[in-house]
């Protein structure tokens, strides 16, 4: 293994490889920062440029692009409350309040450092466990996936603030929205009103843009051009003292581990990783009440987890040829144009490929962090743009981002409706997080629930015959019920006191 790793690092003797890593990181950083674009698109666009290139050079560039683009989503989430992917939603929860408090530079610095650390830690896991853990992940059948999605959904109670009833209503709204589209098993259209636009379900990116960014614009308009906090300029290399970053080391280590493991399971991916580690960090924090109001801990856990999921998603890709995420699936296409077909033989047939990827993840991170820290100084100034101008710019980004997601008008309509619905929900103090969580997980939950029962022809034993399913279902039940018991006990005490 160490021999091969040395082989991987040796490829960086070629200056072209360095150039490729820089270019990849830079493009990825920009593409990720624009809502509606994302790592998959970035890689697909870059594929034609890799023809005739040395495979190692092109793979290093694409990996750098992938990780930088995955990070880039944090920038728009922090600065303008516009998460371009579900994975960056939890980043916006604490990042945007920090920006509003004039601490954008701090938020960007914490996010880039956590992201970088997430990738470094996760890559170490990847080198050590890619093959055995990927083989283990194969045991995840439909029953296990259903239980995992349910665990994700059970986080609603931990993530939503305010009334549990309103949280539940918001969750069911998300679940209801997730049922729109062609039925995956039978192909029957559901709630499509005969319009083919609805066949593939409600598109996620426009809903994210609407619920978060457009809603924010409406709130800004309501507040008017009132006084706003001047952001603190970044003076040194880091906008936060080293001590603050060191204080986050446990949060980052824990979230990176969660991120890696969730990333390895095909189909789970960065968004579940970010939500899960955010919920865990909140539960374990000394100051859980600060979460959602600009907690650096929350920001660090979301960002380290969603970036740690990237090397995680590469594990089944490299070990078995099974992509762990949509972007990893695009990587397969990129490798194929080089004549490399990822599969179970990759490690034995062409070990230089996986080990170069490992090396490029480690070498790519400092490059990405450097680009990120340099960029943070410029980006942080975005927070100083007068509010009316910001509102106009964000609205523009929402429309362009929604259109770009499928080059058609339909996502724009979805985005506008989601923005208006989100505004009403916000005014009525319904939390938005459960809507997104349920929308992301609802489809995964339903498909796997039905797939499980189809494979057993209706035998429910599929949900209690596998130990892994049972454990996951118990975790979900506890996560749902414990807060409910707590609330009930508080209520009883209050009754007794009066």
């Amino acid at each position: 293994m160490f021999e091969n790793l040395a082989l991987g690092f040796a490829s960086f003797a070629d200056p072209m490889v360095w150039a490729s890593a820089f270019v990849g990181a830079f493009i990825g950083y920009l593409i990720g920062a624009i809502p509606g674009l994302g790592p998959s698109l970035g890689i697909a666009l870059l594929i034609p440029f890799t023809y005739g290139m040395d495979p190692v050079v092109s793979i290093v560039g694409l990996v750098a692009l992938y990780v930088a683009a995955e990070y880039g989503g944090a920038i728009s989430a922090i600065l303008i409350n516009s998460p371009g992917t579900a994975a960056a939603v939890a980043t916006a929860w604490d990042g945007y309040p920090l920006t509003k408090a004039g601490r954008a530079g701090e938020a960007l610095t914490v996010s880039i450092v956590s992201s970088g650390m997430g990738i470094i830690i996760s890559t170490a896991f990847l080198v050590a466990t890619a093959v055995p853990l990927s083989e283990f992940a194969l045991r995840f059948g439909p029953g296990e996936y259903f239980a995992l999605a349910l665990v994700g959904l059970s986080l609603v109670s931990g993530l939503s603030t305010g009334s549990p009833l309103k949280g539940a209503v918001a969750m069911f709204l998300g679940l209801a929205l997730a049922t729109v589209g062609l039925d995956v098993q039978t192909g029957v259209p559901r709630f499509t009103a005969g319009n083919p636009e609805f066949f593939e379900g409600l598109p996620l990116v426009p809903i994210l843009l609407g619920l978060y960014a457009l809603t924010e614009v409406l709130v800004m308009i309501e507040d008017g051009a009132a006084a706003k906090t001047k952001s603190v300029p970044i003076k040194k290399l880091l906008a936060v003292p080293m001590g603050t970053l060191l204080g986050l080391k446990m949060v980052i280590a824990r979230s990176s581990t969660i991120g890696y493991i969730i990333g390895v399971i095909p189909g789970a991916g960065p968004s579940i990783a970010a939500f899960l580690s955010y919920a865990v960090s909140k539960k374990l924090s000394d100051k859980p009440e600060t979460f959602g109001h600009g907690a650096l801990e929350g920001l660090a856990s979301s960002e380290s987890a969603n970036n740690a999921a990237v090397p995680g998603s590469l594990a089944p890709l490299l070990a078995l040829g099974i992509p762990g995420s949509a972007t990893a699936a695009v990587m397969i296409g990129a490798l194929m144009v080089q004549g490399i077909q990822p599969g179970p033989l990759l490690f034995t047939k062409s070990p230089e490929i996986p080990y170069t990827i490992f090396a490029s993840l480690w070498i790519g991170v400092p490059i990405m962090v450097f680009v990120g820290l340099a960029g943070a100084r410029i980006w942080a100034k975005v927070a100083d743009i007068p509010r009316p101008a910001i509102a106009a710019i964000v609205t523009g980004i929402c429309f362009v981002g929604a259109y770009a997601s499928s080059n058609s008008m339909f996502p724009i309509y979805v985005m506008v409706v989601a923005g208006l619905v989100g505004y009403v929900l916000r005014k009525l103090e319904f939390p938005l997080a459960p809507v997104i969580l349920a929308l992301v997980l609802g489809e995964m939950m339903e498909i796997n629930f039905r797939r499980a029962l189809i494979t057993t022809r209706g035998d429910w034993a599929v949900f209690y015959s596998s130990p892994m399913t049972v454990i996951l279902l118990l975790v979900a039940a506890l996560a749902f019920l414990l807060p409910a018991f707590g609330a009930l006990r508080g209520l009883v005490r209050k009754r007794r006191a009066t």
Partner: protein
Amino acid sequence: MKIWNFKTALVGAACAGVLSLGLAGPAAAQEGWKPTGPVNFVMHTKPGGGTDVMIRSLAHSLEPMIGQTVVVVNAPGGGGATQMAKVAASAPDGLTLAVNTVSHFTSMLTNLKGTFAPEDFEWIALMQVDPILFFAAKESPLKDMKDLVELARSKEGQINIGGFGPVGSMQNIGMSMLEQAAGVRFNWVAFESTPDIIAAVLGGHVDVGVANLGPVIEYFAADRLKGLGVLGDNRLSSVPDMQTFGEQGYTVDTSWLQVRGVFGPKGIDPALQQQIADAIFRAMEAETYQTYARAAGVEDGAFGPVEYTAFVKNIMTIAEEQLGAAGLLTQ
């Protein structure tokens, strides 16, 4: 049933295509396709899928030949409807083209019936054919299709077959054809991507999977998966041991193949269509494209507008029969 025998037609045309490409090369260069502006290829998928990578590879070698930029426009959504609407609304000048698979035809008979029909478009070139095959995990007791059919008979249909798309999809129809030929029933488990099917077969969550060769070939080589049979006329050259359905005694219509073709809006001049098809076939000879196509495990098709239009008609007939038999036709 008046069916054109595509088995021979396809093989014949493939050979003829190779020959005519060699012969027609210089002539085509003289009066080749000279578009007056950038050419758009509208995709029904998100960026980065198998078909998307195919068209980007092709665009790369097509651009220098036609002296124009080739832009890949991703218009996912609506089960292809977003793409087809864009194509239908464009001018028939050859500057807006699109890529299709068999799912375009099955959806025009079901969910998109009344919205789009093959007559609304020009079918210009068939670029790839890709037969489907059935596979099982290495550990499985099944060795071939006969074992599978026997098992299905003894367990009264309690055999899970994982494949791409819902009931009525291209692969599901392939399974139905086998059911009819063998007189058994299987249990269809729908998946949304081929890697998911492979993972489910490797993990033992379904008994048998359906796929095209490309995504599974490495697993055959690594001895993790084994092929049970291929729905085609001939065995696959890279998996010579795997018999066809026909060889194992199950006669099915072997023109039921996954395809990737190029189509455009109604009204493109037939001469221009031929020029476009010729240019595409020549671009497919480029080394970069061939590297990709061989890694992807697909076979090159070489049907021009006339043959492809006839092919589409035949595919529609088979799909209509099969979907009708399954009670899936939208009234």
